[in-house]
């Protein structure tokens, strides 16, 4: 990674991990919104991961739900500690996704999108009418994450409902891990195979790539992280019902990923933090909140169809445009003075055009 790209990441990480907690330590509302942003970012990142193989999934909420229920049941009925239920729920969700991946991933494009959406709805209705997992009422009184101690030394303090900071750090930790894993994945041979499948699955298959296998791997890894988020949210909210996981959540995950820029690793995160905070900032305008929010979404998708981060593509040309304007002014000045030769100036302009 280039040094120039590393610095902004370090600054962002410092703000996220140190700055925000220090500034808003006692502001539970702000911390709560940031916790939500982090949760949704992870899920939106999994949408992006599946999209790197070319498929747009509208069913990630099913895996969040699976993780939440899995973790809730592991903790409440099997007596697992949260610290075991969290990875347990993730692994169960990943396995479940790999199993249903076989029939589901046979479909492509719009058909897959529709199927994933319908699947999420089927699972929600199935849970609704299944009394073992609480039926319509859902699960409640889910234990909060417990403390871990060695002797008298508390490695992890008790999680209390009033103090949101431990939750903030827990989900921040998960987001950072997800980011690092997906970043490595993007640059690994596996990530290259995913992108190859997206460009042309027929070509990839003709080169001996088992397309189905790799799609299932992407689907399974995505589901693992979505399951982690489900588990976290179950123990964070301590109560949820089937209605907490509607298809609209799934559709919003896709919205966040696309508005941020789904071809960028940072896109889903930018989309989640940007849109969620936009929504929160729009609270004072009451009933106009939704209209303004929608306006922003429409403007971004119309003028930056590749997401907000694709602004970076226009930045250089703005710069050259700006510098050209500046140079024209200086040229005028120069012409007045009669000191500056024209031809070399035009050459420089052409050069800057080419690099834009």
């Amino acid at each position, binding site marked *: 990674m280039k040094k120039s790209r590393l610095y902004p990441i370090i600054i962002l990480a410092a703000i996220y991990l140190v700055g925000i907690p220090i500034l808003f330590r006692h502001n539970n509302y702000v911390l709560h919104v940031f916790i939500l942003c982090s949760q949704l970012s992870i899920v939106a990142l999994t949408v992006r991961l599946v999209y790197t193989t070319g498929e747009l999934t509208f069913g990630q909420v099913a895996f969040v739900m699976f993780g939440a229920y899995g973790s809730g049941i592991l903790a409440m009925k099997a007596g697992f500690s949260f610290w075991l239920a969290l990875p347990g729920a993730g692994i169960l969700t990943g396995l479940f996704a790999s199993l249903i991946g076989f029939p589901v991933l046979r479909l492509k494009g719009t058909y897959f999108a529709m199927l994933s959406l*319908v699947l999420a709805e089927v699972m929600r*209705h199935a849970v609704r009418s299944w009394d073992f997992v609480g039926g319509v009422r859902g699960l409640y009184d889910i234990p909060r994450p417990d403390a871990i101690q060695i002797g008298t030394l508390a490695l992890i303090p008790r999680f209390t409902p009033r103090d949101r900071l431990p939750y903030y750090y827990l989900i921040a930790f998960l987001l950072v891990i997800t980011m690092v894993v997906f970043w490595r994945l993007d640059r690994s041979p596996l990530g290259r195979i995913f992108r190859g499948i997206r460009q042309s699955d027929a070509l990839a298959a003709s080169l001996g790539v088992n397309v189905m296998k790799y799609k299932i791997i992407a689907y399974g890894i995505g589901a693992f992280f979505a399951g982690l988020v489900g588990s976290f949210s179950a123990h964070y909210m301590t109560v949820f019902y089937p209605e907490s996981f509607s298809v609209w959540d799934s559709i919003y995950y896709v919205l966040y990923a696309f508005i941020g820029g789904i071809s960028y690793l940072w896109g889903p995160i930018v989309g989640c933090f940007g849109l969620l905070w936009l929504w929160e900032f729009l609270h004072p305008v009451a*009933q106009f909140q939704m209209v303004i929010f929608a306006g922003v979404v429409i403007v971004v998708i*119309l003028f930056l169809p590749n997401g907000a981060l694709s602004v970076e593509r226009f930045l250089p040309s703005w710069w050259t445009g700006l510098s050209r304007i500046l140079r024209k002014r200086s040229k005028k000045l120069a012409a007045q003075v009669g000191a500056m030769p024209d031809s070399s100036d035009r050459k420089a302009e052409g050069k800057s055009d080419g690099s834009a």
Partner: protein
Amino acid sequence: MTFFAQVVTNGLVLGLTYTLLALGFTLIFSIMGVVNIAHGDLYMLGGFMTYYLFGILHINYFVVLIIIMVVLGGTGAGLERFLFRRLRGQGFAGSMILSLGLLLLIEGGALIAFGEREKGVPSPVKGVFTMGGVSFGAERLVILAASVVLVFGLFYFLARVKSGQAMRALAQDAEAAYLQGININRMSMLSFAIGVALAGVAGALLTPVSFVSYSIGGYLILKCFIVVVLGGLGSMPGCLVGGLMLGFIEAFSLTYLPSNLSYLIIFGLVLVVLLVRPQGIMGRSELQ
């Protein structure tokens, strides 16, 4: 027996309105490749126009239907011209996000303009028909007649009228259609106008027997997905089959089963159809 026949009529009426809704959605999808999530909200606009024009201003119901078709048709053409055209040919994801933004915009606007209360409209025609012991309200007869006319009118338009044939050509192969001299821009606008007008009319027809509220669109678009997937994505006859299927299943399961289970059955059926026959019941098998 009479009860059974009553349920069948309910299913038929529901099914035909779902068909109208899904036909508009499919028309837009098959010609533009746009998955228009805002389709249910255009239904909602039709419903509110009925509420204000017919319910409050007492304009003749059939005049209201025509006004809605014209106004929403114009809206649809405008949406295509100024929004969706910009994203044409960039895959379905971008236009889907755009339509999601549109859904939020219309819903938010409706919340400001119409408030959050559910609105009902008195039925446009009074009276009860009795046929062989089965009685049903005259307004259901109106829905039935209007939907049949519109559905088969659209089928006739697509099969026989020149611009309808052009639309089908466009849906089959846009490039080839363009080479044959079909004006893609004009046809896209026309199909969007017709599709949106159909959604509005469905709203106008169904509102007198149910209600309309600003948030009804999101609920209806899921129904629309079910119909379209059951019948086959992009297939017009499939809309009729899927719409009637959903109408009958809903009417029967809501009567004889707990509502919880009925939706599980409906979505389960859709899942099975997708897995066994992804192109839907009436779709072409060009897939895979």
